């Protein structure tokens, strides 16, 4: 185990040694976490180290990761964190099965990739320890809380302008480069030019809103 840890350290200089905890396996393409203490058999470790030597030498570029449609596997064991890229789903299942059998617990084998995991699976991501999958899930599910006063204003204005789609899709590719005047639904420029009748919806007086 020590040699494996060192070799991993060489390949992944930023692996953080977490404090001594019971072994955990967190598959980043699914929320699968073994609770309590897990003892991995030595043959399991051998299997894992084999996988390690195959995969850790290749920092998966974004292109490779996409073309192979692979997932990332994070293993917490004996105070070390290991991140494996480019693990085919079937292999991952095998690993989980072995670990499960060793641990004697049931594991929830969800296959859906979390948005967070894929988002962070870029070139840089695998060099840094990833936070637990449960945290990514929490972040994905909980929108940033809005300040109450501003939220009310935005809702009222949305109603007045008759726009029923309050959250336009953020994934437009040129969003970042769009530094020019916005034509977003939220802001209609009146300025000094005459107001175009089609932009104005019949509005209730604001104080009744």
């Amino acid at each position, binding site marked *: 185990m020590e040699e494996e840890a060192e070799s991993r350290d060489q390949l992944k200089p930023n692996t*953080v040694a977490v404090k001594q905890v019971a072994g955990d396996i967190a598959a980043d393409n699914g929320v699968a976490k073994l609770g309590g203490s897990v003892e991995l058999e030595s043959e399991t470790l051998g299997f894992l180290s084999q996988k390690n030597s195959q995969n850790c030498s290749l920092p998966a570029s974004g292109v490779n990761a996409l073309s192979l449609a692979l997932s990332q596997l994070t293993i917490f064991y004996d105070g070390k964190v290991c991140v494996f890229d480019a693990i085919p789903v079937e292999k991952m299942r095998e690993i989980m099965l072995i670990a499960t059998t060793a641990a004697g617990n049931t594991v929830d084998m969800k296959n859906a990739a979390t948005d967070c995991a894929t988002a962070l699976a870029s070139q840089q991501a695998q060099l840094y320890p990833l936070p637990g999958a449960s*945290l990514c899930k929490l972040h994905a599910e909980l929108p940033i809380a809005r*300040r109450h006063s501003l*939220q009310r204003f935005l809702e009222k204005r949305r109603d007045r302008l008759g726009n029923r789609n309050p959250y336009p899709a953020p994934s437009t590719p040129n969003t970042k480069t769009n530094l020019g005047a*916005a034509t977003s639904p939220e802001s209609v420029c*009146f*300025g000094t030019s005459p107001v175009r009748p089609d932009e104005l919806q019949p509005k209730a007086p604001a*104080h009744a809103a």
Partner: protein
Amino acid sequence: MEERRTAPFNTGMPDAVLKCVLPYLDGPRDRASISLVCRRWYELDSASRKHITIAFCYTTTADRLGRRFPAVESLKVKGKPRAAMYDLIPDDWGGYVRPWVQEVAANLDRLRWLHFRRMIVRDSDLEVLARSRGGVLRALKLDKCSGFSTDGLFHIGSMCRELRTLCLEESSIVELDGQWLHEIAMNNSILETLNFYRTDLVQVSFEDLERIARNCCNLTSVKISNCEILDLVGFFRAAAVLEEFCGGSFNNEQSDRYNAVTFPPKLCRLGLGSHRMPSVFPFASLLNKLDLLYALLDTEDHCLLIQRCPNLEILETRTVIGDRGLEVLAQSCKKLKRLRIERGSGNVSVSHRGLTVLAQGCLALEYLAVYVSDITNASLESIGTYSKNLCDFRLALLDREETITDFPLDNGVRALLRGCEKLRRLALYLRPGVLTDVGLGYIGRYSPNVRWMFLGYVGSSDTGLFEFSKGCPSLQKLEMMGCCFSERALAHAALQLPSLRYLWVQGYQTSSQSSDDLLAMARPCRNIELIPARRVITTDQVEEAVVLEHPAQILAYCSLAGPRTDFPETVISLDPVL
């Protein structure tokens, strides 16, 4: 240390001298130091302390305040956690003003200025206050409060005739009528500040506003809710010395009529809920504060307006200002001290590009709060290099972009902290992976003067929190969201951080043994409260049910008052004795 308890400590300074000096020392930290020297100085301080801020209402009791500082003239009490502004705290959580009002009414004879923030106020409390201190009260601020109606305000209007300041900003008030404002109009001739901005009070009559403007020759600041601007022509004409105006709405289809509205000549602080910026152009160069949070301007409009405001010191707006607006700001507004960019709902966003330019251009910046869609280490370094006056920095990373350009941000955050030596308040709301445990350790190591922090989705394991809590020597108040930290780590941090007296956490790794790990942080004079995970069902604007899952919350704070006794069902007090 005292060996002879009865003998007074000889400071070599007669009381008379100290009493001459004390009035010049009004900073709370100085006063706190003075009170620790010896019993005599403690007594002299107590007798002469003029202002008290109770940063959290459950840290002490109202009668303790009255016993120690009977001569206090100005009192500020804060209640609910800040998260209440984001709808994360149950409405009935607590923070009742009643005990404080009762103390004011019974014992605090010198009280003139009263400010409650995020607290629950009842009409009966306002009546008690008005009856007992109405003759002398000079300022009342009910700031983000709730639980009262316009009937309570009626008592204030009719009995508090010495009021110079009435502020109700962002409070949730049940509106029964507009009589309260009428009472003020009929009874008050010395009002200087009137504020019911961001409230839903709409039954107020513009004639009453006009009457107030005519009667009160020192009226300098008026912030209202949605009242049609065309109705305020008379008000603006009468308010000759008005310097600040916010609110109002522009609903009239005949937009020409707005050209007839002339603003008072000394107006230099403005907030308009409008698209009609050209009417502001004539006096834009006078403006030192601009509130565009509720304006209907797009990026271009922002640019056109901002470039005409060379004296601007304070700007609040939404992300629609865009990076381009920040460039214009950097070029035109060299005196800018405070900038707040709230989250809008459109496509335009603010990013590291705008922030870098801003930092280089606006060197006087003291407060910066911004929602960004993207951020880089380089831009944070720029802030560290140029924003040498920055005391308060708040950054929230929106989730609109799937990946951000440059992460982790460990080095950028370190550079910012090392560069901004005056930093007192810090907020970073990020996402998993953007600030690693190493970065969290940097925050601990490089924030010697920071007293308040809000951290969201930072770090990746307990190690990060462990490293963080080795530092932060001045940290008094810590708020965290979306933590990967275990209860044990949180308890450890609460014990390690030397100045910590208030901890709020939502979203953390709950441990299997219910709350025993948290009790590790239990100490005498420390309360620990839990709000377990809740499911809140609300209806959105299209009348559909929306289910919100609120993760569990912890609130731990130092207190001389013992555990609370007034909490609702949603709140659980952890008492190690039980």
